[in-house]
């Protein structure tokens, strides 16, 4: 697992050296959420009803933003060649990158979400459900996103293309994250929703690094 720790440490180091660039995603998350009361009107009750789904969708979009740079830099400066010729298995590299990505996007999103929940006048149980949903959902988003990022290295319009590829794959996570919030409020089937989110996370933990490694191997040129 040398490769995993080396890549994780380096990516976090690089993010810190960029001083603030890494936190752009969570700023986008907050800003995006704030657009909705402005667009829809601050009618009491409506925002709190929409809150869970809204925050889930914004979490998806914010996670996407940071994804297309995931491998791009390494590809451009030759580090990807290095990673591919090193003895470290590529799936550990992909896993390390996905974890670094989550720590820099999903993590801050989870921290900021309760504040935004209050702003959207969500109830405390709903906010609790939201935290559970994001805690289990955002790592899955980073993992699945890594597959898309590895497949689009060097592609034209890779940012938009990545979104087009990855958003359909995000739909199950979206449905269950939003469902978890509702379930937390109504008290029905909360366990079921959380279990399914957990299952999706486990599935991606096992499959996503491997799929990303397959995509990384195909780069050629």
């Amino acid at each position, binding site marked *: 697992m040398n490769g995993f720790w080396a890549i994780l440490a380096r990516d976090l180091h690089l993010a810190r050296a960029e001083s603030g660039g890494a936190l752009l995603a969570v700023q986008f998350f907050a800003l995006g959420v704030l657009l909705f009361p402005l667009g829809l009107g601050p009618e009491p009750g409506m925002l709190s009803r929409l809150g869970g789904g809204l925050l889930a969708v914004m979490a998806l979009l914010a996670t996407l933003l940071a994804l297309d740079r995931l491998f791009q830099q390494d590809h451009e400066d030759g580090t990807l060649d*290095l990673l591919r010729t090193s*003895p470290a298995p590529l799936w550990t590299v992909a896993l390390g990158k996905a974890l670094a990505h989550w720590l820099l996007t999903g993590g801050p999103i989870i921290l900021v979400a309760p504040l935004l929940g209050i702003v959207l006048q969500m109830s405390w149980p709903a906010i609790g459900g939201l935290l559970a949903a994001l805690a289990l959902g955002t790592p899955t988003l980073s993992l699945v996103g890594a597959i898309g990022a590895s497949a689009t290295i060097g592609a034209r319009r890779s940012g938009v293309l990545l979104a087009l590829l990855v958003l359909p794959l995000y739909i199950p996570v979206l449905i269950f994250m939003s469902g978890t919030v509702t379930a937390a409020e109504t008290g029905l089937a909360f366990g079921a929703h959380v279990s399914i989110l957990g299952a999706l996370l486990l599935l991606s933990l096992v499959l996503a690094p491997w799929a990303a490694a397959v995509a990384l191997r195909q780069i050629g040129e």
Partner: protein
Amino acid sequence: MAPGDGFSFQFRARGLAGARGARWLFEGLDLDLAPGDCLVITGSNGTGKTTLLRILAGLLAAEEGRVEWQPEPPGEMVRLHYLGHHNSVKGALTVGANLGFWRRLAGGSDAAAMARATALFGLDDLLDLPARVLSAGQKRRLALARLVAVPAPLWLLDEPTTALDTASGEAFAAAVAAHRAQGGMAVIATHRDLGFEATHRLRMGVTE
């Protein structure tokens, strides 16, 4: 295999054929490298030097043929260094941090090799500087330092001496000599006179 023992691997290619996109570049290529060998590849641009190196490195799939090691090196061992036109240097990290990352990636902690590398390429005074303030020549020296800091039996180098001044060129030649003395092998594509003798030469782009 402890560091300092030297390498005793042979590297072979049989019937390699390479293409770049839709262009067929070479076919029927055989290579035999023994410990201490150095193959220099020459040829004008577009003849497939880079493609060949990348195929040998495993970064690009050959259209035909195969590459083999005799004996097969253990999985955790660093088999080869590929150095292309890019330096793989992260500007935001210090010189020392860059080298540290490369060493961690290889799983090794051979401090002696690291010290030798920085001394040979004159990086000892630059270790704390962020790599982005280095000149092109200094960045290339950092990239070359990786070859010495992380021992590996095969070096695949594409124009390694670009942007190097004479002194650094000599340091590079010394590094190659030490590597070969240890049983290492090198395949170097270059336009320039490297200042040492190769055991084999291959000229690309010539029809037989």
